[in-house]
């Protein structure tokens, strides 16, 4: 029975993706019910970070492109949602879908430009994008609300869930659902011919183009997909925080997104989960840690940053392939030890 289930899952990527999504959804549902409303907010922010990181890990890990500009793409999604809901009076779901489409559309020219650039040149161009785009919000402050940004009303949980249903849990559900959609789409995409073609391009562009792959178009497409994910993440961020403002999308955000992807483990969706957990939890942990010592404010205000910097440096030296890489290496070593101990053959 289990063997046949396993065989079916191994054959069908679609079923495997669905199984993952159902599993992840069940875990999310259970956790969001058990924890406090503060943790629910953390869950929501972990979910929108996951959406962005998953898109970025496909771009950086599978297509081999670097982007320091995904924070700006999140801003595009966030502003789209806030404008559609706040000014246009659109309902929640269509405006989130529209945000994904708009951000993916912005990703088309950016991705087309990016597909001509390599390594540090791409890093420089996307960095300029991350710094330059928020300037638009300042320039057209009449429409985008300038430094203060735009706000919307919080989403209301449906009355069928009961009047006492906490808002935070509802937000965690919305963001979690978005993350599940990303998980499903990207898990399928990486296992498809598209994912295989991307990896071929990453490993050897010239060989790939000689075998008939259209390198530029594939890289642009990868950028558009990851832009759509970033737009979804940004849209969910705007819904959870009920706000879109330039200060929420500084260059720092773009850089920490890249950090999350590499720390989690480049190119793997599980790595994106690790990365999202780190981006959500690490700042809180380091702040708590700093407050647990009695230090002068000048020191304790900067201690979280210092710890974060040390973690980044040590992690890159000790686990060059990220948390997921370290976990995988551990599993391989355990399996090798078990194999070395000899198979447990009965009667021998």
């Amino acid at each position, binding site marked *: 029975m289990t063997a046949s289930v396993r065989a079916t899952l191994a054959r069908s990527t679609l079923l495997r993706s669905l199984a993952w999504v159902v599993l992840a959804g069940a875990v999310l549902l259970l956790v969001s019910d058990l924890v406090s409303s503060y943790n629910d907010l953390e869950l929501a922010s972990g979910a929108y970070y996951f959406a962005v990181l998953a898109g970025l890990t496909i771009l950086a890990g599978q297509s081999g492109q670097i982007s320091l500009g995904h924070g700006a793409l999140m801003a595009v999604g966030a502003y789209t949602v806030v404008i559609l809901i706040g000014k246009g009076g659109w309902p929640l779901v269509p405006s989130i879908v529209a945000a994904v489409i708009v951000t993916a559309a912005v990703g088309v020219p950016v991705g087309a*430009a990016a597909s001509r650039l390599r390594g540090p040149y791409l890093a*420089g*161009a996307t960095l300029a994008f991350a710094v330059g785009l928020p300037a638009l919000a*300042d320039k057209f402050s009449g429409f985008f609300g300038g430094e203060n940004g735009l706000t919307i009303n919080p989403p209301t949980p449906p009355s069928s869930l009961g009047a006492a249903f906490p808002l935070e849990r509802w937000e965690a559900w919305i963001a979690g659902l978005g993350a599940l959609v990303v998980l499903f789409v990207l898990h399928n995409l990486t296992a498809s011919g598209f994912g295989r073609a991307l990896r071929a391009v990453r490993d050897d562009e*010239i060989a790939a183009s000689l075998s008939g792959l259209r390198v530029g178009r594939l890289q642009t497409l990868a950028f558009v997909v990851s832009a759509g994910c970033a737009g979804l993440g940004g849209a969910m961020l705007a819904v959870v925080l009920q706000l879109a403002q330039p200060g929420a999308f500084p260059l720092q955000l773009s850089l920490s997104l890249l950090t999350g992807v590499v720390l989690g483990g480049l190119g793997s969706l599980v790595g994106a989960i690790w990365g999202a957990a780190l981006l959500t939890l690490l700042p809180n942990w380091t702040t708590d840690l700093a407050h647990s010592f009695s230090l002068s404010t000048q020191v304790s205000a900067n201690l979280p*940053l210092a710890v974060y*910097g040390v973690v*980044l440096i040590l992690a890159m030296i000790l686990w*060059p392939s990220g948390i997921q890489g370290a976990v995988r290496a551990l599993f391989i070593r355990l399996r090798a030890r078990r194999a070395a101990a000899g198979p447990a053959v009965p009667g021998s």
Partner: protein
Amino acid sequence: MTKFVDLTLSGISTGAVYAAVALALVLIWRATRIVNFAQGAMLMITTFIASAVISSTGSYWLGFAVALVAGLVFGALVERVVIRPVEKAPPLNAVILTLGLYTLLVAVAGMIWGNTPRSFPAAFSLRGYDVGGTRLLFTPNDTFIVLVVIAVAVVLAVVFRYTSLGLQMRAAAFSPEVARLLGVRVGQMLTIGWALAAVAGALAGVLVAPSVFLGPNSFDPILISGFVAAVLGGLDSPPGAVIAGLILGVALSYVSGYAGSALVPLAALVILVVVLMARPGGLFPASRERRV
């Protein structure tokens, strides 16, 4: 007309600083193929050290010299201690590592010197030249900045082109294995590359500090512009970095003067994208054959 002259001159002065930062980035890129995002934080630390020396001894030039020496030592130290372990790792790891170093240094500076920006003395007068009754926006200090940066660029060019050390450094960067076989101590060359780059960075810090003030995050915009200039120039070319730095400084000065400072980041993006679309390897790309 006066406005145009003023904008051009002040653009040249800021452009010179961008050029110095771009030079630092290019030197590190040539030596180790790493984009050093910690450069801004490293030059911030050396400028704080200079500030401490100046305020305790009262001598600007002593502080200036200490900043450069501190940069030399600091650059070598950073390469040996934190960069060496990831030199063989995937390139993204080194990027994240330098981001971590940046974060750590900013936090340490905040702990020691506080987060409120402080003033920093200039080498020469900050009063503009009087020409025919009108006062220009260009000061004796700006002249000093431009001359120093040009001098550094020339010295570097001479070192790379005409000295044995320069030849060894180029060999180590161009083909580490062959260079090692020929007796070049490649590791040492990388350390020297980082040290020289940190000196160029330290110089930029001391030069620009009077106009941006001195705080843990004061130099972030300079680093971004310097990076854009380095990419514009083609990351392999020190003259390219200087020329692109000056062009970027002047262009952004026009944008800021005629269209408003809010558009400056956007203008930097447009300039970079337009240039890179025409020349994906920057203005002065390294010639490279396509290997199959």
